[in-house]
């Protein structure tokens, strides 16, 4: 899906969204400091597109996905779904929005209740969000099972009877069961073997075409992201580093972090000896991110200015944004 076929209609718009977790300590459990998991993300998600979110573990990409869905309460920021502001709404008022947004989780072993039959797991969302009769629900579940490549007789089975790939298919069936328009996929294939991974990616693409879904695809696998996404957001320590259409990002990575990330991927080609950009050291702790540009401690281009001043988010080309002083 590398051709941009998306209509530029904004589905979800978030502005300066933050998610800080307090760290408490001492005998009075006073707040000592905060883990800044997501620190100021501004972004429009267009209808029908697949937005990839990439970065190293601990960069806040999963927290961003959960915050957007309302699974975590944002510390700060404005979130507008189809133009309606979601902040300050009561849970009851949020219910119609929740059926529009679903999530596919990373670990297909942990995200299914081991004591619940697959059919019941799939039916649950239908009971809450639709007024279908039991017979109607059953036929809907059977239809869902078929759609994700499972069989009707799987209805009465328990999660342990399925392989990892099949469980992820069940997770996908559950996410699409109430016809949402927006799905956050949090590393949906990283726990799977490569051959199964390819099958699941194919299924996700087919379903997107059929149901006109919008995906936010959180992943650390840059190969999968290139294959599946239209636009890609690169995150580092809770902040936005670069956002660009997929082809631009991979062919012309501009931020030094994106460049390093892309050059670190081992390629399945023998005898290709190009110099890689080496990043020294590890990701700094999100409790105490470095001042100025968060990346300056590992950046090969860092200057004095990077240590003092946080770089502005700016558009360098149509649809291509970065946050860097030196580019």
């Amino acid at each position, binding site marked *: 899906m590398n051709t941009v076929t998306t209509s530029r209609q904004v589905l979800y718009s978030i502005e300066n969204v933050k998610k800080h977790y307090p760290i408490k300590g001492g005998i009075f459990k006073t707040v000592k400091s905060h883990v800044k998991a997501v620190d100021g993300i501004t972004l429009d998600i267009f209808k029908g597109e697949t937005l990839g979110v990439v970065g190293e573990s601990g960069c806040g990409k999963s927290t961003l996905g959960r915050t957007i869905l309302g699974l975590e309460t944002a510390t700060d920021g404005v979130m507008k779904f189809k133009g309606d502001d979601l902040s300050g709404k009561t849970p009851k008022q949020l219910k119609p929005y929740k059926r529009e947004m679903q999530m596919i989780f990373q670990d297909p072993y942990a995200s299914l209740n081991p004591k619940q039959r697959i059919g019941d797991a799939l039916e649950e969302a239908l009971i809450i969000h639709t007024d279908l009769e039991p017979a109607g629900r059953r036929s809907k579940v059977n239809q869902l099972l078929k759609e994700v490549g499972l069989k009707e007789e799987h209805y009465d089975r328990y999660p342990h009877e399925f392989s990892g790939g099949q469980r992820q298919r069940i997770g996908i069936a559950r996410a699409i069961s109430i016809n949402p328009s927006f799905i956050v996929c949090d590393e949906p294939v990283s726990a799977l073997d490569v051959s199964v991974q390819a099958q699941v990616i194919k299924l996700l693409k087919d379903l997107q075409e059929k149901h006109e879904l919008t995906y936010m695809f959180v992943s650390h696998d840059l190969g999968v992201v290139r294959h599946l996404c239209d636009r890609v957001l690169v995150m580092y320590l809770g902040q936005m580093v670069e956002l660009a259409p997929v082809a631009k990002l991979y062919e012309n990575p501009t931020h030094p972090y994106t460049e390093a990330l892309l050059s670190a991927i081992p*390629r399945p080609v023998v005898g290709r000896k190009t110099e890689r950009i080496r990043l020294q050291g590890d990701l700094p702790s999100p409790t105490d991110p470095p001042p100025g540009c968060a990346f300056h401690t590992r950046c090969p281009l860092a200057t004095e200015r990077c240590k003092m001043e946080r770089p502005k988010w700016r558009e360098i080309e149509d649809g291509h944004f970065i946050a860097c002083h030196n580019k």
Partner: protein
Amino acid sequence: MAQSILDIENLVTKFKTANGEVSAVRGISFSLKKGETLCIVGESGCGKSITALSIMGLLAGNARSEGSINFNGKNLLNVKHEEMRKIRGNEISMIFQEPMTALNPTFTVGFQLCEPLMIHNKLSKKAAFQKGIELLKQVGIPLPEKRMKQYPHELSGGMRQRVMIAIALACNPSLLIADEPTTALDVTIQAQILDLLNDLKDEFQTSLIMITHDMGVVAEVADRVIVMYAGEIIEEGTAEAIFNTPQHPYTKGLLSSVPNVDDPYFKLNPIPGTLPNLNEQISGCRFHPRCPHAMEKCIQHSPYRTKRTENHAVRCWLQEVEESEYRNYQPTSAV
């Protein structure tokens, strides 16, 4: 090239389970030369880790290995328990996938690093500590004196994996087995660790068996590659042969299941189905239920090993078909 240090012949590893005996490894043979890097690839459950554990003699109590594992002239399957302890960690050592579970959380890094030095090299506590600091420097850990006194939970994932590598290299083993050493790490850290392994290997002339499912990692480090499927070796050859002219449909499938980062027009072509269970009875070629080219013969007979070139062998009936087509083709073209 140099002589081989490891010769495995017809290795079979079976597990006794409640449902009878199942074979995880079904008669594999390969050899490893000094200073060579061999990658074993395949999906989870194909027997690659069990092969490594069989070499190390670290299998669970209900397992039984047959065949022979010749290491420096000794068959490791016949070696006594006590003697094996002297070989393990000293001449053969292993790097595990999860550095957090492989390190003991209740001992300092220094203690765990000095232990093999004191046991195998009979160093004093002081000398071992000094050697430990040197080793940590070698694997690129900053402030080694401080790290020696820290516990594993105080280190990051990449740092822990470096400690694991330092422990594995402590006694200068001639064979190092790395079981998915970078799977749990981020790509930037993975690149650092792969570079480190390559450098250390060159420096110490260690032979390396690397187990992985990431074809990218294989291309980066391997001299030779073994592809395993359901307990059998289905293709083996030099890294060039496997990547440039893969023969077995499963190898081809593996290569086209991973989206290529550099190719915007990459066509994903997944292998249908999943790996069979260990206790599943499959006649003929064990890949035939998932193979797009399966023929009548594949269902009935297990294919034998065909050598394509000096450094490339495949177990697939398609090879024979191609050969006979080639043979039939020759005379007509001559006329």
